[in-house]
């Protein structure tokens, strides 16, 4: 029971991170109907920028509670701005000129961009993994009654609380933007019918750019949290995390933001429970198999609309 609870906490933490990345995939796919392959790498860039900012600001685990919180907020903003600039440029350079082109062209271009980002970071920051001492330390022990009997202790670390709370806040914020603001209305209308939206005076290019920026901002936060959670990052983390997040987006129903979050939680839980109860080596296989199974048996996802085949 304690072991299960611990894995549940770990799974929700990991799932929150996947969910945040998945929102970027789902929004872009919803609007322009393409997989932004470089999104996972924007997530990676977000992690790297956070790392650089943390080292530059000289934050360590020894600083007090409020300095750390303030510094992390600053780091989050820096990472958001820089990752947004990346994703905006990627869209501008690699996707916008290809809009309306042949179907394979944006896909190849996107994978090309993903390789460019990976290699750029690898060359600029060398290929070695970058470890960092934990910054957010401490936590709570739940069910410490068990500890007295020498049993398994369930820990809920401050880092996990930080991740889950940040995710909840960002989710609420983005849901509000999408459902309540004129920007969100423009995005939803572009998703439904882009031609009609442009006839009604919506600046499509701007709306798409903002969608990429929003996705990148969330990915940057995810990048920071992923990096703080695992304490290490390298130029290649974006590939696997990207595929898993895309799986989450598909599982939740592509185009649906709550769906992306639910999908992220499910993928995170599957990965953690698989590692805990079966084999850690095959946890990626579990995620990939999940992707295949979802696409085959539930292609519209949990909260998505079924796609109607037109002749």
């Amino acid at each position, binding site marked *: 029971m304690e072991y299960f609870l611990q894995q549940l906490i770990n799974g929700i933490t990991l799932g929150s991170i996947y969910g945040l990345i998945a929102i970027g995939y789902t929004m872009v*796919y919803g*609007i322009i109907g*393409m*997989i932004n392959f470089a999104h996972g790498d924007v997530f990676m860039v977000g992690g*790297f*920028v956070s790392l*650089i900012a943390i*080292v530059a600001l000289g934050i360590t685990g020894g600083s007090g509670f409020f300095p750390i919180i303030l510094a992390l907020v600053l780091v989050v903003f820096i990472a958001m701005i820089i990752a947004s*600039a*990346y994703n*905006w*440029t990627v869209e*501008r350079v*690699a996707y*916008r000129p*290809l*809009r*309306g*082109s*042949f*179907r*394979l062209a*944006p*896909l*190849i*271009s996107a994978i*090309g*961009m993903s*390789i*460019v980002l990976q*290699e*750029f970071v690898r*060359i*600029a920051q*060398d290929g*070695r993994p*970058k*470890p*960092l*001492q934990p910054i957010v330390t401490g936590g709570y022990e739940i069910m410490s009654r068990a500890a007295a009997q020498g049993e398994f202790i369930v820990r809920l670390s401050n880092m996990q609380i930080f991740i889950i709370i940040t995710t909840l806040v960002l989710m609420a914020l983005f849901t509000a933007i999408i459902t309540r603001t004129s920007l969100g209305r423009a995005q939803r209308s*572009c*998703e439904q019918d*882009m*031609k009609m939206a*442009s006839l009604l005076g919506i600046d*499509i290019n701007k709306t798409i750019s903002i969608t990429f920026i929003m996705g990148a901002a969330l990915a940057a936060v995810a990048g920071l949290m992923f990096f703080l959670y695992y304490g290490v990052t390298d130029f290649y983390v974006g*590939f696997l995390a990207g*595929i898993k997040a895309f799986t989450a987006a*598909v599982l939740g129903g592509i185009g649906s933001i709550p769906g992306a979050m639910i999908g992220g939680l499910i993928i995170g839980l599957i990965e953690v429970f698989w590692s805990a109860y079966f*084999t850690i*080596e*095959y946890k*990626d*296989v579990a995620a*990939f*198999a999940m992707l*295949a199974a979802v*696409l*085959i048996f539930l*292609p519209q996802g949990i909260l998505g609309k079924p796609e109607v085949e037109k002749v």
Partner: protein
Amino acid sequence: MAEVPKSTNVMPEARSIAAAAIAKDVLFTAVIAFIILGPIVGLKTFAISGSLALEQRWGLVTVFVAIVAGGRLAYHLLVWNKPQARPSRAISAPVLPFMNYAKYIAPALVAFAIILPFIPGVDRRIVDLAILILTYIMLGWGLNIVVGLAGLLDLGYVAFYAVGAYAYALLATIYLPAWFGDGIVPWAFFITLPIAGVLAALWGVILGFPVLRLRGDYLAIVTLAFGEIVRVVLINWSDFTGGPAGIGGIPRPSFFGLPFIEGEGGFAAFFGLDFKPIHRIIFLYYVILVLALFTNFVTMRLRRLPVGRAWEALREDEIACRSLGINTTSTKLTAFAIGAMFAGFAGSFFATRQGFVSPESFVFLESFIILSIVVLGGLGSQIGVVVAAIVIIGAFEVFRELNFLKAVMPAGFDPVQYRMLAVGAALVLIMRWKPRGFVTRREPSVVLKEKKAIPTDLVAEGHG
């Protein structure tokens, strides 16, 4: 899904040199370039006594930002201020007169390929490079069946390559000697080749079956996932596959039983030649040449068979196909299986050439390079695959030759480090410039009276 309208021109239409606007735009470009390059290039992290420290490189950032801004300015002054000729979207001539010289290109290339090892001045390095290019041409032709003809987007093609390579590696090192004794080892390659093809085709069907209903990007991402699953299994199933260390000591091919060794019983002694290591390389070269030409021959013949026509019909319109009674399930599966079979052959060849296989050789990047070769060449074009393979693999090699740059650039500069970066960027640019590949004409499968080439604009890409 909303239909995406073609983007309006990124740049405004009539363009004279408006200094203020250009200055603003260049400044904006410089700011964006600074935001992008500043932290990652300007602040390099390095490990020092258990923690990280930063090395500041603002000079480098300044140079890069200046290059980007300068490039933008040059574009404004030299390219974008010219009046833009509106590209005519109408297809000028639906059918073009078939180029007369086109039919001589392929035989000339084949003739050149046959005499290549004997051209004076061609040394081992060139033959090695030619082997590499031919391997990719063969893989490209195999994938062309799946992507170019049947219109099924496959991002996990390298899995079948891996199946072929591991089939040969395991059979030749462990199973064949155990079953039939060591005498069989010189023949292992020729015995295993068909087995590897069959196994890869079987895997093509196994992996193809679940994804039959998927289309487009979804198919791409699931095939990518399958490719990764195969690789993860190869890494972790250590008892069978040797794990991350791979399998070494794979027997080299023999000249139909005559090993390439010095002295009695070897190839050189049998034919009364002086022993040279290059004999084996040249033999390998001809093996892959024959395999590649076989792939091409089979593909060209299949296009004329009902199954080949069904592939192309499937690519053009799946719903019409179904309503005309074509069994789309078996059509898709045959495309997957036959494409996979050729990857299996190529994989066997790869294993015997390297003498060593490990999961490192079968990463997603390989799949992507093969797909890029097919797309850059022009989907469905056989000669396009050849051109694209030479360009891409050749470009990889060119980076090894750029040693003069080391003299010009600061110390520690190694051009080889930059090759993937350059290839990634080149793919993005080529997609902007020629999204339908280098070769933009297709040969029709069926002709009435006279043969005419078809512009690619008239060829569909398929839905799945």
